[in-house]
């Protein structure tokens, strides 16, 4: 029991100290590559939505096809 309490306290201390130090590690000025259009998950929405439609009509799986964001993290 005592060991468990110590273990929990150590874990909490580690998490606490870790969280306080986490900062965005890729600075905005370092995101030029991520902003390149070839890095977009859906470069041409008209094309990707058509292909999703082709697959959805012929496969039982559906959903989580993406398009929620991506690119440079700026849209």
């Amino acid at each position, binding site marked *: 029991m005592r060991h468990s309490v110590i273990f929990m306290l150590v874990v909490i201390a580690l998490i606490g100290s870790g969280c306080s130090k986490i900062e965005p590690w890729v600075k*905005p*000025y370092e995101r030029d590559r991520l902003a390149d259009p070839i890095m977009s998950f859906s470069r041409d929405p008209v094309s990707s939505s058509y292909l999703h439609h082709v697959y959805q009509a012929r*496969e039982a799986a559906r959903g989580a096809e993406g398009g929620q964001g991506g690119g*440079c993290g700026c849209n």
Partner: protein
Amino acid sequence: MVLKAAKVVDVAVTRTARHCLAVGLLLLNTVCQAAILPEDRADAMYHSYDGGGIEITGPSILVRKQIGDSFSVYGTHYVDTISSASIDVIATASPYAEERTENSIGVDYLRDKVTMSLAYTNSEENDFHAKSLHLGVSQEIFGGMTTVSLGYSRGWDDVGTLGNPETFDTDRHNYRLGLSQVLTKDLIMEIGLETITDEGERLNNPYRQVRYLTSATTFDFQDEVYPNTRTSNAVSLRAKYFLPYRAALHGEYRWFDDTWGITAQNFEIGYTQPLKDNWTFDVKVRSYKQNEADFYSDLFPFQDAQNFLARDKEMSSFSTLTVGAGVSYEFGKGNLGFIDKGSLNFSINHIEFEYDNFRDVTAGGTPGSEPLYRFDADVVQFFISLWY
């Protein structure tokens, strides 16, 4: 660093990238700190699907325009012109032709780092009408490294059969959760979760039938019977990696299951290579595999053999393999008047469908020992895009 960034982004040239760069230059090293609206663009596409006795062609149009600083509105128009002599049609009915038209309107509203979306879609066929409403909200957090998005859609389908005035309603709810995370200067990742629930008396294709044995050497057909509800879950993980010589590698995995006993997985890997200032080439491979629904059988032992009956090949156990390639040519940068630039795009995807428990009844032979069905399909897209 800033000069290098400016050079790379200038070659990349999209409005997204230029917005990011402009903001960065203005705010000194704060590229992409604020969320932005999607680019103003118009796309006009011709699409074609040809495989398994089915040909589907038609246009797809998307137009998007920003209004003021906070709103972006868009509209889409999509048509499938279908000519079908598929194995399902050959086995139990007659070849047919029909058309499906889908129109959508939507608006995105940006306020600081939050984007709110609203869209409405209407789809019309001679025996099928569908309306859906989509709501979404996404927010950038953690210095723009993380984007969290939530989405909800509500769909109302009206399913009928030709020659029969009776129609059946289907209600659909979609719940989406997305997380986009910048991991390194070269790597971005996206996680998606989606749960979909359907409720209705005709969740099956009303023209599909199941077959059952009438003797050791003969069989007959009867209507499919599906449960009135279906709930599915899908989880996807995508990653995109920037290669040092300006190319991109992407990978995708999705896992799926539903209350009908189907589980499915798909993997995709792709590569994008720009060449000189105007050309971009894409290649990809996608693999998909699913098992069959609990109530699926290629051949039931007798009529009304169980409560629920399916022989729709999309409910069977099968796998597909897609190999795709595309090319894009960019033109008119800065010399087309109010148009910033344009691109011509062509892509082809070849898909192989291999069924594990769906037999080709048109081949003849003893019921249950016909050859397993398989077919190939070619999916062609040709489109022009304009940014303004």
